[in-house]
């Protein structure tokens, strides 16, 4: 008898964990992309120029 029995549930659990991991990594990329666009398009510039001095 094999020492380690691979049950169908292990595959399902692995698939679920991979799915959640992919969603989280994609979310990081979306937030990063948004941040780059917002910063480069000037959305986060202070409204009064003298604040920068």
């Amino acid at each position, binding site marked *: 008898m094999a020492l380690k029995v691979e*049950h*169908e*549930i292990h595959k*399902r*659990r692995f*698939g*679920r964990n*991979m*799915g*959640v991991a992919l969603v989280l990594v994609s979310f990081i990329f*979306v937030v990063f*992309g*948004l941040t*780059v*666009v917002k910063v480069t*398009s000037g959305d986060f510039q202070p409204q009064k120029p003298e604040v920068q001095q």
Partner: protein
Amino acid sequence: MSDVSFDSKIAEREAGFGDYFALLKPRVMSLVVFTAFVGLLAAPNAVHPMIAFASILFIAVGGGASGALNMWWDADIDRVMKRTKNRPIPSGKVDADDALAIGLTLSAMAVIMLALAANLLAGFMLAFTIFFYVVIYSMWLKRSTPQNIVIGGAAGAFPPVIGWVVATGSMSIEPWLMFALVFMWTPPHFWALALFMRSDYDDAGVPMLTVTHGRRSTRNHILGYTVVLAILAIGTAFTSIGGPIYFLVALVLNLLFLKGAFDIWRRDEDASETDNFAVERSFFKLSLLYLFLHFGAILAEALLRPYGYGGWAWL
């Protein structure tokens, strides 16, 4: 208890990733994505592609979250209806509490992220849409009035308005025309379904028009709503989101839709049962194409606008 029985019990209860994804009603989500996308592109302001992508994504997640909350609330009637008994909660794949947790978490995340990515008004509109679908429609109206579909249709009609608000940050008449298109389309679409999925809503005790006012009255209602929808859909051709392409598409589709509604109105139950509701079924299929092509035509007008061919001005 043997190891084998212990294992199989866990195996039955543990959901896969696909089961959680099914909670988000992917097919409804695809309609939300498409109409929100059209609303965003039909707006006069250009949006950075990354902001447009993220906004549509968060609108889709918000729509999916409201689907999960709807499944959590409606699990008892979903168990009874043929059409819904294989959904993740009634089939035992996902716990109702898990669905609630996923729905609430994704709702909050989608609303906050949309407000940050686009603007506060868009975030507020998404929050209101989720509230409307879950609380006003699912919890309150669905089980208490035969007008459930009419008022509930509003929830599905908000995405193009949210898409417009993402681009402009403000309201105007055009997104509400797209809202009205989905809003008026929903009742005939669902009542046709209720005519041929006859026992489902009776069994679940949902006060569908077919149950409360009878099937004759439902046929009358389908025709009445389709006439108003046709006037509205063709009239939209002469606004700033319409144009000759939209006009031609709307004219053909609305003539076909009116003919279908008229055929349904003219038939009685005996005629319908003889051919197993063939006319009602084909009207339902046409209704799916109807909405897709109307929004497709609005999209075409919007995409041609930068080249000088959108709207009526170039003719």
